[in-house]
């Protein structure tokens, strides 16, 4: 069961995890990405390509589903403006065993960073803003999965 949701509102991590727990696997893994404070950041604004985003996320989830024996995958990604500490993204996976749940969760996050049409604008405390640039470490993380 694959659930993909792109939305403005935040999400309840416990509720989403229990939705996957109910599918009967012995392992549920999750990752929550939040707005990180590095001194000058006040908020992040997420823009996306509406007609493409959900399909891109679903493709990533389907690839994970083919690669690991999973019972369920939930991906929720917020768009719009989010303040320091707010939740941005949730990935949950459920499987019979720990390794498949953890690995697939990590894989989905690595792919999501480079293969889904989202763009982050960083709003600083002084009112200025800048578009966040692509990070080589994110590209490297995705490529590591290819070597397997």
């Amino acid at each position, binding site marked *: 069961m694959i659930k993909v949701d792109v939305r403005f509102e935040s999400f309840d991590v416990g509720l989403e995890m229990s939705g996957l727990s109910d599918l009967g696997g012995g392992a549920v893994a999750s990752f929550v990405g939040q707005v990180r404070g590095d001194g000058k950041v006040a908020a992040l604004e997420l823009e996306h390509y509406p007609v493409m985003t959900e399909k891109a996320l679903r493709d990533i989830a389907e690839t994970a589903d083919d690669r690991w024996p999973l019972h369920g995958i939930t991906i929720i*990604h917020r768009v719009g403006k989010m303040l320091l500490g707010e939740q941005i993204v949730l990935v949950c996976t459920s499987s019979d065993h720990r390794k498949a749940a953890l690995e697939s969760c990590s894989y989905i996050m690595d792919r999501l960073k480079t293969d889904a*049409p989202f763009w982050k604008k960083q709003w600083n405390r002084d009112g200025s803003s800048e578009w966040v640039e692509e990070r080589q470490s994110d590209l490297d993380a995705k490529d590591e999965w290819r070597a397997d």
Partner: protein
Amino acid sequence: MARSLHIVYFAWVKERLGKAEEGIDIPDEVGSISDLIEFMVAHDSLYEHVFSDLAKLRFALDQEFVPINEPIGDAQELAIFPPVTGG
């Protein structure tokens, strides 16, 4: 015969161009995205400015990521944007 293509822009590409989308009639000699960029740059200095560093641009044709040398073919929509930064 020229054909029409819907183009959408995101993030700083959209901001610098001052528009989110437009329709462009592309001539027959334009085969790939790369050809189209060249055509646009040659016709308007605004594009010349925004598309000056091709290494910083990414593309999607009909909502699929593609490289700059991809043929446009019968695609309806081209998206031009900076590298993605979600998650």
